[in-house]
């Protein structure tokens, strides 16, 4: 199995109900800031997503898993950058 698939698999396995609840809680807090002035597209996407996270637990679970995957990739790319700095 390719590494990206493994990351997805591990992220899904690590996800617990408290991660899902946190996504919902953060969605609720983000909703209070919406809409962002001068940013209609972003506001529409965020409004739709926050509503979906609140009403659909599977959507919230998917966001929680994707957040972990994105974090792992971000950390991974940071390490790659650091390695290249050292090599140079």
């Amino acid at each position, binding site marked *: 199995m390719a590494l990206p698939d493994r990351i997805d698999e591990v992220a899904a396995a690590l996800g617990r109900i408290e*991660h899902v*609840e*946190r996504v919902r809680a953060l969605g609720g807090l983000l909703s209070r*800031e919406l809409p962002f002035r001068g*940013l209609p*597209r972003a506001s529409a*996407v*965020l409004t739709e997503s926050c509503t979906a996270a609140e009403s659909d637990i599977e959507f919230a679970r998917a966001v929680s898993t994707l957040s972990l995957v994105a974090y792992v990739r971000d950390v991974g790319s940071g390490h790659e950058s650091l390695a290249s700095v050292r090599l140079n």
Partner: protein
Amino acid sequence: MREAPSLVCVKGTLCSCGSGRSSNRCHGDSRNEFARTQALAEARQAALLFPSVRLRAADALALAERIAEALSDREQIAEDVLADAAAAIDEREAHRLVSEWSAAYPDRWSSLCHTAADVDAAERELVKGALAAAIYERLPTPPELVVELELIEL
């Protein structure tokens, strides 16, 4: 919050933590200061790593809200502000935070408290971490992130 067991470390005597080692080779050893600091830092960071370590009581969340409103932009929370606010959190809420995490990770908590040599301080740090998480979650979303979303081709 319960009283911390006091560790009396007299040179040449057994350490009162119950390890069976002499105090100057256990909690009386000044070289353990770094480990103690690290253990307390780990207690503080529990909320960063575990989303279950979150405040739930309405008055505690309202306190986090007020502190977040008073912070300008992404400013760091002053340590004295955090300490005072954490001390104002209801004892039952503080106890719930500690007992839930320590029940989920009993070995880690036990080890952390042993290394910190101060259960009360470890509990305070965990509560401060939960409060800090609640405050940071209530800060405004950085505008640059939203702008990025506006510009993405969906």
